C-alpha cells in the first residue's frame, strides 16, 4: 500500500515532546529498573537473555527516528507496559505508532510478547532465553496474525568487569504477505524473515552502560536485506528510571541509512 500521508510539524514532533516530558518528570519517578539489562529497541535492538524481575512492572516508551535507503523519514513512538508475572518471565504489550513519509505499515498494531529466561549464566554456560511475540493486526495495512520468535544468549567474557557478549536470532512469520505496486515495481512482502545480531556491552561508568552490535537482517519486503551497526548507551537516572540512547548506521544500499533512538523505562 503506497503511503501518501504528509504529517505536519506538530505531528512529527509529538513523540519527541512526549519523551522530553517524561525526562523532565524523571526526578519524581519511583520504582526500579536496571541499566545493565539490554531490552529490545531501548538504545539498540540487541537484547540480553534476562527477564525483568518477578512482580516488577514498568512503563516504557521509546522513540526512533529512521531515514531509509530512499531518503524517507519515519518516526516511531512505542508506548509499552512490561511486567514480571512469574519468576524468570516477562510479558509486555506495546502499540507502535509511526509518523512520517516512510513505511508506516503496522502502525497501531498491538504487539504482545513474552520472554522466558532459562538460567543465569555460570562460569562457562551462557544465559539463554526464548521469546515469542504476536502482532495483532489492529493497525495500518495489517492483516493476519504475525508472530516472531526470538532467541537470546548472554555471556560475560571478562573476569572482574561486567563485559558481556550477546547473540540474538529472530524469526518472523508474516501470516498474510501482501503485494503492492510502487511506480512500475511490484512490491511483495516476505512470508518469513530472519534477523541475527551479535554485540557486546560493558559498564562505562558506575551508572552507564555502552553497547555496540552488528545486525544482519532480512527486511519486510522481498529481496531486501542488509547490515547495520549500532551504538547505544543506557544510564540509571535514579533508582527506578533508565534512559537509553542509540544510533544505527546502515551498511550497503538497502539498509536504513540512519536511525536514532531514545527510550525510557520507568518502574511503577
Amino acid at each position, binding site marked *: 500500500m503506497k503511503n501518501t500521508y504528509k504529517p505536519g510539524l506538530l505531528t512529527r514532533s509529538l513523540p519527541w515532546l512526549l519523551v522530553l516530558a517524561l525526562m523532565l518528570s524523571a*526526578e519524581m*519517578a*519511583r*520504582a*526500579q529498573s*536496571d541499566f*545493565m539489562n539490554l531490552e529490545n529497541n531501548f538504545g539498540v535492538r540487541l537484547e540480553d537473555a*534476562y*527477564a*525483568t*524481575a*518477578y*512482580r*516488577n*512492572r514498568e512503563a516504557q516508551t521509546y522513540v526512533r527516528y529512521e531515514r531509509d535507503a530512499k531518503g524517507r523519514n519515519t518516526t516511531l513512538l512505542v508506548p509499552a507496559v512490561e511486567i*514480571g508475572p512469574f*519468576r*524468570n518471565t516477562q510479558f509486555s504489550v506495546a502499540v507502535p505508532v509511526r509518523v512520517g513519509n516512510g513505511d508506516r505499515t503496522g502502525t497501531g498494531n498491538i504487539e504482545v510478547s513474552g520472554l522466558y*529466561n*532459562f*538460567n*543465569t*549464566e*555460570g*562460569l*562457562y*554456560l*551462557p*544465559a539463554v532465553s526464548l521469546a515469542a511475540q504476536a502482532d495483532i493486526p489492529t493497525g495500518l495495512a495489517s492483516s493476519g496474525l504475525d508472530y516472531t520468535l526470538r532467541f537470546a*544468549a548472554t*555471556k*560475560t*567474557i*571478562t*573476569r*572482574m*568487569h*561486567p563485559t558481556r*557478549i550477546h*547473540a540474538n*536470532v529472530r524469526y518472523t512469520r508474516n501470516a498474510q504477505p501482501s503485494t503492492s505496486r510502487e511506480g512500475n515495481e511490484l512490491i511483495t512482502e516476505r512470508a518469513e*524473515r*530472519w534477523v*541475527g545480531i*551479535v554485540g557486546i556491552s560493558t*559498564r562505562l561508568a*558506575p*551508572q552507564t552502560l555502552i553497547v555496540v552490535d552488528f545486525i*544482519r537482517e*532480512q527486511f519486510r519486503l522481498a*529481496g531486501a*536485506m542488509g547490515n547495520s551497526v549500532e551504538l547505544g548507551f543506557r544510564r*540509571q537516572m*535514579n*533508582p*527506578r528510571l533508565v534512559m537509553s540512547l542509540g544510533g544505527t548506521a546502515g551498511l*550497503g544500499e*538497502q539498509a536504513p541509512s540512519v536511525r536514532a533512538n531514545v527510550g525510557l523505562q520507568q*518502574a*511503577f
Partner: protein
Amino acid sequence: MNNNRFNKAGLASLLLGALTACAPGKQITSEPRKEVSYIRGPYNAAFFRRHGPSEAYSAGFHYHHGKEHDVLVLTPLADREKVDADFDASVFDFVKNQKSKVGPNMALYGPYTARLAWKLFRTIDWTHQHHEQTYDIMASQRVAWDKKKEWTDRAVKYYLERNKDVARSVAPLDITMRRAATMMKPYFTYYRNFYPKSNSQAWVAHWWHPAVYEAQMISGNADGGQEAAIKEVNRIMFDEVYKNRPQRMVLSRELMPRYSRMSPESANIFDNLHMLHGLAYDILSYEGWTEEQQREELYRVIDAMSYQPGDEKYARKFDIPYPDVDPRQYPGWMASSEGSMSKIMKEMMEEMMPMMMPDISPDMKEKVMAQFQMKMRPGMEPGEIEGSLHDALMKLMPGMTMMPGAMDAGKTPEMMREMMLKGWQEKHGNMPDVEPYSMQKDPSQPAINQ
C-alpha cells in the same frame, strides 16, 4: 555472495563460536535467576530523594561488598598486602567522592562471583532491597510516624515470603551463628586477619548503616530533622570513624537500639546479612578449597542462616547494652574490639571447648583463649599464630578433637551445632523479650549529648 540469501548456517556457526570461545570444556553449572522485584508502597525511593548524598555513600559500601568477592577469589593470598591496600583505597575513593548516586547490585562489581555462586548474590541483593525498603519507610513523610512499624512489618513479611530460599533469619545472630557452626572451619577469620583494611571498610559500613537508622529514629518525620542528624552521622564517619575504624562488627542492638526494638525482625535480618558478608569473604579468601567447594560451603552457610519457620519467637531475644545511644557520636566502645559480637563468639568458643578439648589444662586454656581473642581482632598481632582460628588452635593443641564435618566444605558439624544451640538455650532461653518501642509520638531531634 548473493545478497538476497540469508546464510543461516553461517550465522549459527558465528553465534555458537562466540558463545563457546570462553568455555574450556570444564564441568559447567548454572542456576535459575529468580530475581524478585521490591514491594510497592508510597515510600518507594524516599531515601534517595531525601538523603541523596547518603544514598551515594551507601552505594560506595555496596561497591565494596560486591567487588570484594571477586578481589578475594581472583587474587592470590600471597599478594594480600598490596591487594588489601589497593582495594581499601579504591573503596574510600568510591565512598568519599560519591562515584555512584544509586546503589549497585552485587553482580555489577562482582561479575565473576555472580557466575560462580549466583545464590550468594541473590541473597545479598534481596536483603539489600529489603533494607532500601526500610530506609525508605523511615525517610518518607508520606508514612506517618505511628504507621512506620506497620509498613516495616509489611516489608518484612514480603521479604520472608517472596524469596524463601534466600531470606535471612529474623532470629538474632546469637542463634544463626550457632546454626552455621563456622568457627572451626579452616577459613574462619581469614578475611579479618589477612585483609584488615578491606575488612575494616566493611565494619565502617556496618557502623554507618545502623547509625543512619537510629538517626532517623531520633529525628522523626519533620522537615530538616533527619537531614541534620544524618549529615552529622556522615560528618563523623569521615572525621572520626574512618580515622579510628571499628575493630569489630557493631550489631544493631548496640547502635540502633530504638530501631531494633521497633522492628527486631528487620534488625536481625540486617545483622545476619552483615555476618554473611564476612563469612563469604572468609570462604573466598581461603585457598585450600576449589571454587566448587567454596560454592558448596557458601550455600551451606546461606541455608544455615536463612529464615526458618518459628524463628519469630526468637526475634526479641537480645539485650540492649546502650538504650540511649546517640548515633551522632562515636564513643570509644563503638571502636573497641569488645562488644556484643565478640560476646557471642566467646560464648560459642566456650561451648565448643569441652567437646574439642575435654582435658585442657588451665594454662593451655589461657593460651587458647588468648589466641582466640587475637583471631577475633583484625590483622595480625605479635604472638598471633597465622591462619584461621582452626589453624591457631591446632598448632596449640595438635590432638584437639575435630567434629565430623568440621573441616569439610558444605558439611555441618552437627554435634558442635547442637552443643552450641543447647548452650544458648541454657544461657539465654529464658531471657525476657526486648521491650517494643513506642512509635506513637513523632520525636523531635534532641541536642547532641555532651
